[in-house]
């Protein structure tokens, strides 16, 4: 059985093993014992609420309870950009119009910005290849929204997620080749590594400050704007189902999209429901609502937050969870859990 749960100090080795599988392209999850240990300490302090909300980094692991093996990881940061500047390009619109000539030209424009400073962030999602099947990916990614719905006061008004940007067949970034290279004079991966290390003053020093018309860029660079890496397409779709949208912010190097949402408008905030766990009896099972719709269920305890996927559905404020499920959630009948249908239900009234 799989459970997604708050990370613990004892997970360091498991986390390191997991990170060793990640490969390039994920700057926040590198198999570096020192970095990882530091981050884990912050995560534990976050769940224990011993550091201020904006410094927190809630990490979750997916554990295969049969083996104790860690199958995946994901995280939510309380706020970004409060110690190092957080840069993006924002795509804006400028209209150049002349009545006299009857010309009306609408141009996309890149603005170097720190607009997302202070937003909460979904990040560091990784599922081990052995577990990439069924609803595991959905469980891991969407579990974070249940946590947010349970503790919304811990997060900023807006939440974002940076998506890995489009790369050509040969692994190059057309956007970087069409723009960044002229100013940074080094390879894309080198630049990416520098930012992962937090060395960002070179961005202030070398990046063009003036708004740039997108039309100045070569065709392939233009097309890469807001487009995710092929491997990231499913992850993007999952977040969009939860109410996150691409609003014109992209990575300054590869132009990968930033998805964002008001926390208050996330599907989990609007549609997740509290339910009381029913006693584990045959009667309860017999009366329970039967649907083919899987549900995400979490307990409501910060320090030991745990989430699972179940076939049970909440009904009239109750939910029928099996003994095993209750054990996975560390909860008992009569206690309250939070529920959210795994998939988005279609609105019949539109």
């Amino acid at each position, binding site marked *: 059985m799989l459970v997604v749960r708050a990370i613990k100090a004892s997970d360091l080795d498991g986390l390191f093993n997991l990170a060793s599988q990640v490969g390039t392209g994920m700057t926040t999850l590198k198999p570096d014992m020192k970095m990882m240990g530091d981050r884990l300490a912050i995560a534990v302090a976050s769940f224990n609420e011993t550091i201020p909300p904006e410094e927190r980094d809630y990490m979750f692991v997916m554990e295969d309870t049969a083996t104790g093996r860690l199958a995946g990881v994901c995280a939510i940061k309380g706020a970004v950009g409060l110690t190092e500047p957080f840069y993006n390009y924002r795509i804006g619109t400028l209209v*150049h119009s002349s009545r006299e000539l009857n*010309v009306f030209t609408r*141009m996309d424009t890149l603005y170097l910005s720190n607009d997302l400073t202070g937003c909460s962030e979904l990040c560091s999602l990784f599922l081990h290849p052995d577990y990439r099947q069924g609803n595991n990916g959905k469980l891991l990614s969407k579990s974070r929204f249940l946590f947010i719905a349970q503790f919304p006061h811990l997060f900023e008004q807006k939440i974002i997620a940076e998506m890995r940007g489009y790369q050509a067949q040969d692994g190059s970034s057309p956007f970087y080749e069409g723009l960044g290279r*002229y*100013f940074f004079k080094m390879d894309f991966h080198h630049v990416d590594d520098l930012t992962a290390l937090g060395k960002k003053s*070179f961005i202030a020093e070398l990046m063009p400050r003036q708004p740039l*018309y997108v039309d100045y860029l070569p065709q392939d660079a233009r097309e890469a704007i807001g487009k995710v890496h092929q491997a990231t397409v499913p992850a993007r779709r999952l977040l969009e189902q939860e109410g996150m949208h691409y609003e014109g912010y992209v990575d300054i190097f590869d132009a990968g999209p930033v998805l964002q949402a008001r926390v208050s408008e996330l599907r989990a905030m609007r549609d997740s429901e509290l339910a009381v766990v029913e006693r584990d009896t045959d009667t309860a099972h017999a009366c329970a609502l039967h649907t083919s719709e899987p549900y995400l269920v979490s307990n409501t305890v910060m320090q030991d937050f745990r989430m699972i996927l179940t076939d049970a559905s909440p009904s009239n404020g109750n939910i029928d969870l099996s003994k095993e499920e209750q054990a996975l959630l560390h909860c008992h009948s009569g206690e309250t859990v939070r529920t959210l249908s795994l998939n988005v239900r279609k609105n019949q009234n539109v």
Partner: protein
Amino acid sequence: MYVVRPVETADIAALESLAAVSMPGVHTLPKTREKIEQAVEGSIASFAAHVDIPSEESYMFVMESLADKKIVGTAAIHASAGSNGTYFSFRNDVIQQVSRDLNISHSVHALTLCSELTAYSQLSGFYVDAAVAQRPEAALLSRSRLLYAVQAPHRFGDRFFVPLAGLTDENGGSPFWDALGRKFFKMDFLDAERVIGGARNRTLIVELMPHYPVYVPLLPGDAQAVMGQIHPSGELAFNLLTSEGFEADEYIDIFDGGPILQAHKHTLRTFTASMPRRVAAASGTPASDAVATYAVSTGPDQRFRAVTINCAPLESSETVCLPKQVQDVLGVSEGDTVTCVRI
């Protein structure tokens, strides 16, 4: 012998046939009868105007072959480029890019839409017949505008500029336009020039042209290659102007990327090296020590005339000897003062 003088109404027909000669770019002659008439009338009014502050005046000169009374060239100067708006150009900026952390240091060129040439005086409309192009009279024609400015400095700014037509391809397309202006104007180069009439001071420029610097490395190679390059037809004008003291490099045209030469009058030879000299009599044939060619001009205003003469160096002389025929052409007599500058 050739004389440069202000244009007259009688020249209109001759200008019309000159205009029929096809020329690239827009900084040349008005093309239609109506436009030519307007230009000539505007020039006559400008020479006649009493001027306090240089404004919309535009002075047009023609060069006439005295032998056959043919017009063989034209040249013009506008008192103030921005008199009717703001004169827009691209300024060549260099941005220093230094990162000490990364030990990177390089510079990036950027083009910035600017209005700094507003209120400069603008030279334009220079054209000479091919037969005259290699003669010192070509320089005389180009320079006559500045000789007039030396005579009537209150009619002009302290700074002058000249936009020269940029490089275009065989179909009249401009790679620089295709990389920039076309994106905003949504039309071909020649259509855009036609619709704007060669002007660089129109509201539609500020409405349509980019307001933020254009980073040159982002431009396609062919557009970068033609930046600041002149159309072959402008070579003569370019050479005459640079030897006069004009400098390129700082500004380029916003449409075709052609060079805009500019200078403060203190750095122009016509201003710094022109000498007033008293007219003295001379025999009709040049003296055997005639080692120098001079432009000699007189005025004022509508009576402006300029010719070239060959004579001994005038630097240490108080007079200039002019044959009777030259005196007649200039409308001066012995004892009058004329302005001389070595060509």
